[in-house]
Each structure stands twice: as C-alpha cells, then as structure tokens.
C-alpha cells in the first residue's frame, strides 16, 4: 500500500483561496441582511456606519488571508504539504492563481460598501 496522499488536506489547501472567498461572501451577505432586518445598519462607530466598518474590516482580513495563501504557494512550497515534487509543480501554481483570483473577487465584493447605501431597496 503506497504512502497516504493526504488527499483532503491537499484539496482544501489548493482551494483555500476560494474557500476564503466563499466565507467572505457568506459573512458580508449575512451581516448586511441581518443589519437591515434588525435595523442596526445605522449604528455608528468612529463616525462610520457599523456594518460598513465591519464589512470593510472583514474584507481587509480576507484580502490578507488571500495574500497569505498566495505567498505561501509561491514561496513556502514545502510548508504547503503538497508532497512530491511533481504534485508541487502542478498544485502550487493552481493554489496561487486561485488565491489571486479570489483576492480580486473579495475586493470586488468589498468595494460597494464604500459607494452603495446598505439597506435601501431598489429605486429608493
């Protein structure tokens, strides 16, 4: 029986960027939905709307995480646990590219909070 491949770990690592993206989307969507339902969107902290601030901070954290995955995949190959050299050559760049794409997607998801009001429905 050959050495165990740690398939689940590797797949999770490979798609880590996308998983962070999904978590970010779930969080900001959920938060905004709750903020509008329970009307705490207007609460303010340091002069900024609370949920705007939270979404902004969470976006920054998610971006940081994406960059972390990216830099790990690019530089710290050994630490990624990809196993053999061949798999590393294949999965490492995929991990990095996915993290990069996810970072763009997270950024896009985070930006509207600066422009679009939180709770108004369509057409005002």
């Amino acid at each position, binding site marked *: 029986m050959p050495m165990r491949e740690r398939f689940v770990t590797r797949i999770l690592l490979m798609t880590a960027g996308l998983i962070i993206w999904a978590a970010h989307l779930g969080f900001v969507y959920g938060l905004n939905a709750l903020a509008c339902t329970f009307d705490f969107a207007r609460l303010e902290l340091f002069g900024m709307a609370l949920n705007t601030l939270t979404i902004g901070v969470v976006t920054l954290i998610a971006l940081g995480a994406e960059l972390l995955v990216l830099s790990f995949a690019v530089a710290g190959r050994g630490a990624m646990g990809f196993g053999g050299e061949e798999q590393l050559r294949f999965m490492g760049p995929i991990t990095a590219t996915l993290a990069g794409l996810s970072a763009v997607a997270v950024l896009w998801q985070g*930006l509207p909070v600066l*422009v679009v*009001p939180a709770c108004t429905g369509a*057409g005002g």
Partner: protein
Amino acid sequence: MFTGGALIFLLVIGLTVLTIILPQERRRWLAQQNVVIAGGIVFPVAVLSLLLGYGFFVTRGHVGAEEPTLRIEVIGEQWWWRVRYLDESGGVRFATANEIRVPAGEPVEFILKSADVIHSFWVPSLAGKLDMVPGKVNTYTFSADKPGVYRGQCAEYCGAQHALMAFYLVAMEPGSFDAWAAGQADPAWDRVAAELKYGRDLFIANGCGACHTVRGTPATGDLGPDLTHVGGRLSIGAGTLPTNIGTLAGWISSTQHVKPGVSMPSFGNLESRDLRAIAAYLESLE
C-alpha cells in the same frame, strides 16, 4: 455597454478567425500561456473592475432620488392592478385600477404590494422593474419627464393570465393632473339620461356591486377594480382592451372567453339590451 460588449465579441471572434486563416508562423504569438493570462485574466479584471464601479455608482444614483411629491400604492392582484392615491398622512384619497396618472416631471413614489402571488411592476419606458412580493412592501420612486402614455406590464409570471396584466401610466401636465385627481376623488357622475339610469339600475340589480365599487351608488364591493371612473380609463381588463362601449359589453358578456381564468364570471345571461345598457352606463363614468 453594448458597444463595449460588441467590441469584445469582435475581438474574440476575430482572434478565433485568425487562428484558422493565418499561416502557422504568423499566429504563433497567440499560442502561449501569456496570451491566456492577458486575455483571460488581466483584460477581464480591468474591464470588469471599471464596469462594476460604474454599476455601483449608477445603482447609487437610483437610490438617491428626490423626495416624492406624490405617493401611489399599487397592489398586484391576479391579474390586474389596484391603484390607490395616498394623501400626506397615508390615507387613501381615491382608488382606481389598471391606470396610473401622474404629473409629468415630478418624482412619484410607488408603494408596491401583492394581494396574492408575486407580480412585478414595470413601465419599460420609464424605469426598471420591481417585484410585488406577498408579505413585503417595496418602494420605487421615479418620474415621467414628458407627458404621454406609457404602457406597463406585469413582468413576473403570475399565473394563467400573466400575459394580459398590463396597465397604462399616463403622465399629464401638472395642472391637468390636479384637475383629473380632483375629478377622480369625486363620486361617480350621475347622468340624467334614461338609458344610463336604466344601465345603472341593472348594474346594481345584477349584483356587480358585490365585487366592484362605484362611489356614490350602492356598489361598494372590494374584490374587483373600482369602477367609479372606469369610462375615463384607457383600457379595461388590465390593458387588455381599449375602453369603449363595445369592448365593455363584450367583456361583461364573455370575460371567461376574453381572459380565461379571471375572477369575474362571464355575464352571458344578460339580455342584449341590458348588456348594452350596462356597458353604456360604465362608459359614461368618466
């Protein structure tokens, strides 16, 4: 956006054609991973970022509408529109149906509700659509800049007669709008003509008042459209037919044929003369 889309489309198709017609050595530059990165990642990220940013600002533009000068509650029902003009305190000034008149150039807030299933309120020439969802109140503020008649249509499939659920939005000069609104608030005209009185009596005697209201008469039903000024509306059957005595008569006599499934039964039992009289009466309610 369409131009940009067309350009991108032409670019992609053009490149594909090039790969087929160019000799191999002149298209080798296309056959590398960097082209995929440039065309598949860098280019779309740049274009989409711009587009998305633009979209956010347009979205915000839609939100920051001015204070409305008029508030109209529109309730989608299978398959017609109940329209209520509200006063400052939110009370109902008057009700009408399947036709919305607004003063041109003034922002109007539409308060959109549903009485049964999901409908969607849409006047294509004036604004995008917004759904009417049971248990939810959506509001939408927009204005019609130029006087005119704009057709509206239910945009969310709502059952058998979704296709025949339209309305007209009439933008009027503010002055004539006020006159119209005042007229609408009045009860139904009571004409002296014998024929019309005869028609009105038949309207009541046939039980039309169980579902319809004609203010100023014993007809106070709330299930169907308010008919107090039906003769002055552009259409009957929710944009299905133009209002004239003939269509009114045909509608009353064969609703289930003209618009199968509507709540109103066909009054095919009415005698020809009576049918005509009721139609004439309704036509006179301007």
